């Protein structure tokens, strides 16, 4: 017998006579707050910067963030109209990465990033600017996960800057991933 057959046989033997436990349903508790307000507040509490911008303002904001920098790395799914006129750099060298989130979750203060847009721009630059459409902000994680129909190869939920307290219990930012997370929620037609 191979390991799989032996393992499954032992599992079945172990479960003989054991009462089967019932699987509880998911409880839906909708949030009373406006999800965008809540998202911005929770992101800030998580140590991120968070803004509500029109699409026009968004591009100007990206440019202001890139002031004095040689360029930026762009996620592949970033819409053309949001792409600031900046030189494109490989993520390994870029001081700034720009992403377009699949969705955001208000209660946890998270943006969801798909592997479809390329993962390096999400992880390697020290500063990460993420755009997300206001219409793609969910109140709860449960709503977001239940609504997700097609899963990408990898989905990353980012809820703040990379951090660690492993050195003497002192909080340090930017350990491996971006030490600065900036989220702009886009208001208006997208």
């Amino acid at each position, binding site marked *: 017998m191979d*390991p*799989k057959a032996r*393992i*499954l046989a*032992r*599992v*079945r033997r*172990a*479960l003989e006579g*054991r009462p*089967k*436990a*019932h*699987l*509880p349903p*998911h*409880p839906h508790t909708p949030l009373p707050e406006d999800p965008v307000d809540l998202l911005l507040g*929770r992101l800030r509490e*998580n140590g991120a910067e968070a803004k509500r911008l029109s699409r026009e303002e968004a591009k100007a904001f990206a440019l202001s963030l890139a002031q004095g920098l040689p360029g930026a790395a762009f996620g592949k799914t970033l819409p053309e109209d949001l792409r600031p006129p900046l030189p494109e750099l490989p993520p390994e060298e870029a001081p700034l990465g720009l992403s377009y989130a699949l969705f955001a979750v208000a209660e*946890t*203060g*998270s943006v969801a990033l798909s*592997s*479809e847009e*390329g*993962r*390096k721009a*999400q*992880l390697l630059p020290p500063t990460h600017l993420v755009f997300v459409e206001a219409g793609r902000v969910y109140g*709860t*994680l*449960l709503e*977001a*996960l239940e609504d*997700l129909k097609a*899963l*990408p*190869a*990898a*989905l*990353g*939920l*980012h*809820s*703040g800057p*990379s*951090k*660690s*307290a*492993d*050195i*003497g*219990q*002192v909080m*340090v930012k*930017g*350990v*491996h*991933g*971006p030490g600065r997370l900036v989220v702009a929620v886009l208001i208006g037609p997208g």
Partner: protein
Amino acid sequence: MRARARLYPKEAARLLREKPGVREAVTGATLHFERNRLRAYGEVPIEEWRERAKAVKDHVLTHLDHYLELAERRLRENGVRVHWAETPEDAHRVLREIVQRHGVRRAVKAKSMLTEELAVNPLLQALGVEVYETDLGEYLIQLLGEPPSHIVGPAIHLSLEEIQKLFHQRFGTPLDAPPEALAQVARKVLREAFLSAELGLSGANFLVAETGTLALMENEGNIRLSTSLPRVHVAFVGLEKLLPRFADLALFLPLTARAATGQRLSTFVSLIQGPAREGEEGPEEVHVVLVDHGRTALLQDPEAWETLRCLRCGACLNACPVYRQTGGHPYGYVYSGPIGAVLDPGLLSLEEAYPLPYASTLCGACYEACPVRIPIPRLLLTWRHRAVAEGLTPAWEGAAMKAFRQVMASPALYRLFSKALRGLPLPQDLLPLLKAWTEGRGPLKPSPKPFHELWKELEEAEGGP
């Protein structure tokens, strides 16, 4: 990993004697975690969450064969290669084949307790692979050649001064370099490793059967990098890590984060469905190794099977007044603290892990902290009963307990003995129980009068209660 759990009492005493700083560092860190957990639990209907999480995990465990087969099917549909390992040797065979086929020279590794069980690092080194632990705490203890001291904070036993000294010797940083500077040095070394490694290794917090999703939680970004940059990703997953439905993550991710660190969600969550798709960045090959290593035996145990619900959040370690004194090292196996004391006898054998169920005051704080309501205090007693039944406890203990019961049940005998113990010089080196106490401590000094006499005097002085 070879278990040294039998040495627990000696190792704990030695550590307290020789490294008093560990107690201070571990107490500080765990109380910090504990405060954060209490605050985070207080923000949500936590009892309802815990009950539901327990129910979901019990459901998975009582249908484990079904969910294992479903998960395997979904993983394969997603393009993941699935392997089954009963033993560390099985897991080694899988990994050796992958390393050799891809000519791996360098591997980056995300923190995983299961890979500690399987002794993955020694194998890779033997195969000539350079392994980098990439979680900052795990990197520190790798440099020191130590095992993790805590499930979530592997280096919580180290003081800032010790880490400054380590980096001074290794990288020539100044002895008073601040944590930010040390983290930057580590970031630079490990960034280079991320960009050049051919192999990324990880564990998993959860494996969703419905979708074949691997879920991993972290705060640094090293797991996202380890599972995104190298050509090959291998995840080691314990059989108990399954969840039935994708949406179950909406409970288990926040619950684990709140229990472990008091966060609403860990900073980074990776939900991995398989290798990179056409034209995408990411690993070409993703392997999942489903590992038994004692779990099916534990599932068979009519009582201890409940430990398989464990999420590895470390909340019970942070809540434990015994763990706090020493950190994890004296426990002598991968899992320490209260969960280690009830899990290790099941994963190893009671004989190998014998003294661990006694490393507790039975105060019950671990049960209150546990996000999936594992009845740790009850299981500690279960293992103790079994230890007595199997004859593992010393012979004098049974006789002493019998005598103790007689004395405690008789007021006359109690008074007699309490007087005698006060009056006579204590044979401290003869009684094993006393010797265990006095080793490394001052001798016992009885109070001049017993409590019941003091109480009587107080009553008389105040004219009755």
